[in-house]
């Protein structure tokens, strides 16, 4: 069972998933894939919260994971609406094309 696993390993896995998501956001140029990588980073944070919640027997950690899932749901709605909105104006999925606000 997982209770034999130190909580640090769970949090270490969360850190690894977070780093993979960060690589996806930094390296890919398709906005949809970048967005999915960002979702993975949210998920990694939630996993760390739930791991520590199990370590300290605190429901508040799971509450934070609940907040993360709710925030991700709202974020996906707005983000996908933005991506579709931009796509209607320049039909190519590449974030480098969207540079009107370049300083």
């Amino acid at each position, binding site marked *: *069972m*997982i209770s034999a696993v130190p909580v640090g390993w769970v949090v270490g896995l969360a850190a690894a998933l977070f*780093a*993979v998501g960060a690589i996806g956001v930094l390296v890919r140029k398709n906005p949809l894939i970048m967005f999915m*990588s960002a979702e993975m980073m949210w998920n990694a944070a*939630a996993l760390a919260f739930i791991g520590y919640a*199990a370590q300290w027997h605190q*429901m508040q950690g799971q509450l934070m994971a609940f*907040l993360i*899932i709710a925030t991700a749901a709202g974020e996906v709605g707005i983000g996908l609406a933005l991506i579709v909105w931009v796509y209607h104006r320049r039909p190519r999925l590449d974030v480098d094309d969207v540079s009107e606000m370049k300083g």
Partner: protein
Amino acid sequence: MVGFIILAVLSFASAVGVVVARTPVHSALSLIGNVVTLAVFYLLLNAEFMAAAQVIVYAGAIMVLFLFVVTLLTAGKEERERPESLAGQRALSGVLAVAAGVLLAGIAVRDSAGPLVTRFSAGYGSLSAMGRVLWGPDFDYLAVVALMLLTAALAVLVLNRRAEDPRPAAAKEDAS
């Protein structure tokens, strides 16, 4: 321990699959795998309600929305990503992200507090325990989440309002 390693490898592999996939559809399918393995983790970490919420909200709602938009925008198209305009940006960012991940994971594993010995209280992580927290001492969070989701829904409505005629004003005059 063996179960943890198998699950960790599965979830890490699907995470890498999201990043290296050629098309967004493959990314989305890998992300579903990642989400489901994380739900199993939540279940093993005594977070029953969060596991159910993860499957329903992520795999059920968010990923369906993603797949819908992916098929809407990229149906039948194969686009190669263009080469990077900033020289070395990809390599540098990749190296930095890997370094950050190794650092964080190293700290987490080093400062690990050891496995659990005490037993969980009855109903820890269940729906009723979650409800008692959400409707009791931490009601503020629930209210804020409700406000935030309402704001997000309104924002999506506002964003879609102008999408009914995407042509610029000049093109419209030409047409008339």
